[in-house]
Each structure stands twice: as structure tokens, then as C-alpha cells.
């Protein structure tokens, strides 16, 4: 009976059943990679008609948690080295490859309610949204604010920190608060800022800005501690990682504003 209920459920969802002639590859990628990886997946599939790539996007810390709890990802692209390092330590992943860099940018709503014209005027904002400390965007932002304190003084940094009204779990959720017009300013990746036309970008001085580095790894199936022998799936996983590092892959990333590794 229960089995038939599940069977019915499976039948109802069968429109998403995998195509048996294609090899399904699951790619977990940081939220900030959304548009770039959608493009990369599309062109990878065009080059490899027998591969079907499923893309899951979330904060890197969330994706790592899911992998640690048995999610069947084949490839993981993280916005911070810690999250891949933890998986490598636990034996769930092969060696990480750095594939792109990024930097931070300040974004304000088009209407710019707090009238912020430069990074030095961020202390005018009453409502600032940043990433949570667990998320790569939050961690990079903390590093950046630390340098801002040294460069622009304690009173500036204190005013900025006091105005932080929410800490979000990934860079896209941070940006959404500015897209919605609820925040006066937010700190996101430069690429997030470029991908939205609802925000105005304000440069963060190079001496204060933080470099974000993106790493990609192959993930072993949950049941085994060591990497599985090559199968069609892990073969495609390696090919996908190679593709990200290839000239074509790097060109797609550059088109979305990412800097080369």
C-alpha cells in the first residue's frame, strides 16, 4: 500500500525522471555563480550530448553541509577555500582547483535613499545588509570591514557596523534586500552587482577590498570514503571540472565578470 503510494508519487513526478540514455551529473555551486554556471552547464551539455547536468545553487556553507549529510553531488564549486578544505580533510573530495576570483562591491538601490556616492560615505547608511559569518560573502565582508576600520577609522567602522540590520545566508539574498529597496546599502560580490539592473555599484578601494577565490572539487559518493573508481559519472565530473578551467570555460566566467584564476 505504502509502496503504491510512493509509486503513485513517482508517477506524478515522472516528468522529471532522468533520461536513461544520458548520464546525470549533479553540480553544486555557490549562489554567486548562478548565471555563469547556468551558461557553463548549457555549453558543456552542448559539447557532451550524453551528459545531463543538474545544477543546485546555494550558499557554499549550505552546500557543504548537504554534502556532509550525504547529498549526492558530483562536483562542488565553492566561493571560499574553507568549505572545500573541510570536505578534502574528511576524505569526501579530490584535490581542489582554483578556477576564478572575484572581489567585493558596494551596492545601493537605484534611488539611493541614503545618498551614498563613495565607499567612504557608507557610514551614512541607516540600513546595511551583509552576509552571515558562515557564508563566504559574510566572511569576506568581515575581512574587508576590518581593513576599512584600519584605513578609515574606528568611528567610521562603528557607524557601519551599527547600521547592519540583517545578515543573509548567501550573496544573492544580500543583494535581494537592495533589489527590493529595503536596504540603503549592501556588500556583495562585484559579479552579483553586475548581474542586477536594480542596483547601483559603488567601488570599494583596492587597499580595502578583499579577493574572493573560487575552488572546484570532485565529490565522492557518500557511501564510500575514498574516491570511486572511474565510472561514466565521475568521468563526466572530471570533464566538467576540466571544462571550467579550459579557455572556453574561463571565457564564460570572464563574460560574467569573474577574474581568471
Amino acid at each position, binding site marked *: 500500500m505504502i509502496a503504491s503510494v510512493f509509486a503513485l508519487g513517482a508517477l506524478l513526478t515522472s516528468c522529471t525522471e532522468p533520461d536513461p540514455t544520458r548520464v546525470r551529473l549533479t553540480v553544486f555551486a555557490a549562489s554567486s555563480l548562478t548565471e555563469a554556471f547556468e551558461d557553463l552547464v548549457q555549453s558543456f551539455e552542448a559539447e557532451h550530448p550524453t551528459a545531463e547536468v543538474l545544477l543546485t545553487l546555494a550558499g557554499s556553507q*549550505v552546500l557543504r553541509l548537504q554534502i556532509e549529510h550525504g547529498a549526492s553531488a558530483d562536483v562542488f564549486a565553492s566561493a571560499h577555500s574553507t568549505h572545500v578544505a573541510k570536505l578534502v580533510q574528511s576524505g569526501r573530495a579530490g584535490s581542489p582547483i582554483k578556477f576564478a576570483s572575484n572581489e567585493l562591491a558596494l551596492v545601493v538601490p537605484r534611488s539611493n535613499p541614503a545618498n551614498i556616492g563613495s565607499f567612504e560615505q557608507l557610514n551614512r547608511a541607516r540600513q546595511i545588509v551583509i552576509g552571515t559569518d558562515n557564508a563566504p560573502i559574510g566572511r569576506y565582508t568581515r575581512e574587508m570591514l576590518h581593513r576599512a576600520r584600519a584605513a578609515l577609522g574606528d568611528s567610521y567602522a562603528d557607524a557601519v557596523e551599527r547600521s547592519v540590520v540583517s*545578515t543573509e545566508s548567501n550573496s544573492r539574498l544580500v543583494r535581494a534586500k537592495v533589489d527590493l529597496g529595503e536596504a540603503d546599502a549592501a556588500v556583495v560580490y562585484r559579479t552579483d552587482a553586475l548581474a542586477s539592473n536594480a542596483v547601483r555599484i559603488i567601488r570599494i578601494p583596492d587597499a580595502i577590498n578583499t579577493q574572493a577565490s573560487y575552488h572546484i572539487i570532485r565529490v565522492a559518493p557518500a557511501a564510500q570514503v575514498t574516491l570511486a573508481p572511474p565510472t561514466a559519472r565521475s568521468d563526466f565530473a572530471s570533464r566538467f571540472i576540466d571544462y571550467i578551467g579550459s579557455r572556453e570555460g574561463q571565457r564564460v566566467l570572464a563574460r560574467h565578470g569573474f577574474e581568471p584564476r
Partner: protein
Amino acid sequence: MSLHRFSPASALATVLGTSLVLCLAVPFLALALSTSFSDLRAAFAHPMFAPALKLSLGTSIASLGLTALLGTPLGWWLATTSSRVGRITEIAVQLPIIVPPAVVGVALLQTFGRRGLLGGILSDFGVHLPFSVQAVVLAQVVVSSPFFVQAATSTFRELDRDLTIVARTLGASPAEAFVRVVLPAAAPGLLTGASLSCARALGEFGATLLFAGNMPGVTQTMPIAIFTALESDVRLATVFALVLVALGSALLAAVRTFPRLASSVSRS
């Protein structure tokens, strides 16, 4: 044929019912089993814990107060009116029960946000709701008060209409009759509604996250602390979750004992 005799049908019913009980109970058991004493100690000492618990309790009590204050007259009107507007209002008030909390969150932003329907007027008065503790309370009131209103309405409906008529003929004003006769008689039902509504407010997550954000000490309630903790330390999240299970159980116990207590008090 006895109902208790073995039959394939009753065996099937037992299997089905037991499966559901297992689905409902095992996750809570797993939550408790996966926690050690040292996890508990570490989580209670964590800087996220005390502010989140304090905020959750404070906001749930505030939203319960608002709900009772605004919901009791509404429930009375819904129970006593026979107008078409009353029926439509009753359906509208129930909407937040069936709509996902995320929808409520977006709707609240579109209402009270800076670019929302009322955002402009509010900001003229210097009121900025999003990202504030008031936003947490408002989100809780919207998702939880329908439970209270529903309970209040059905309780008032079941009351003997003659009660108020008798009170009035004995010289009580309408307000006196309501406070001294109707409310005590309705207390058990109202308390059940209040407990359910409070439990829902305590568990509010989706609307709060979208409308009030996530700021430790200001808008980070227990459910949002669980969400945040999960991203760094699963054991921390597990203990926070257990605390909410304990609070929920206490409310459930209250739902079951309050009405009996209240009815014994009102009878004496």
C-alpha cells in the same frame, strides 16, 4: 461480528495508522537521541542562544497579547453577525492559515516595505518596519492570529445566547455582560486558541526571515537561529530545535489542561 476480531482490513488500518505515528514521532526521538549532555551545555553557552530565546519568548508574548486584544472583538463580531460581510471576513481572516509563510513574508514586504503600499506613509511618520523587532511581532501576528480568531469565533458561537440576554435583563450594560458573563464562559475555548496561536508564533520562520531579516539580538528568533546554526554546527541547531520542541510540548500541555482548569474556575 465483533469490531475487535482480526480481519485483513483492521490489520491494514493498524499498519497504516502505525506508519503515520512513526513518521510523526520518530523525528523528535531522533532529535533527542542525537544530542549529548555536552552538546546541551555547549549550545546553552553559545552566544546565539540566550538572545534568540529571549527574543522568541518576548515576541511570542507580545504577538499573543496583540492577537487577544484585536482577535477577541473580531471573533465576537464574526460569531454574532449574520451579514455577508461577516462571512467574507471570516474567509479572509483564515487565509494566512492555508497560505505558505513565505507568501506572507513577501506580502508584508509589499505592504510595509519602503516601496510597499503603506511604506511611504509610514516613513513619513518615521516608521521603518522591516528589519525591526516590530516586524518580527507583525509577522507572528499575521500567521498566528487566525488560529485564535477561529477558536474564539467557534467558542462564542457555541455559547448560550440566553446568557447575555439574562445578564442584560438583570441590568448589566452590554460591555459588563461581555466581560463578566461571556468572557468567563468562553475562557476555555479562548485559552485553547491562544495556546495554538502562541505556538504558531513561536515557530514562525518563513515570513520573519523575509520580512524582518536575520540579525542576532534584534530579529534572530529561535527558528532563525536554528537555520543559521545549521550552516555552521549541526549539533548546535539540534539543541536549539530540542528547546523549541520542549516549549511546544509545554504549550500543548497547556492547551489540554487550561480549558479544564478554566472551566472549573468559572463554575466555582
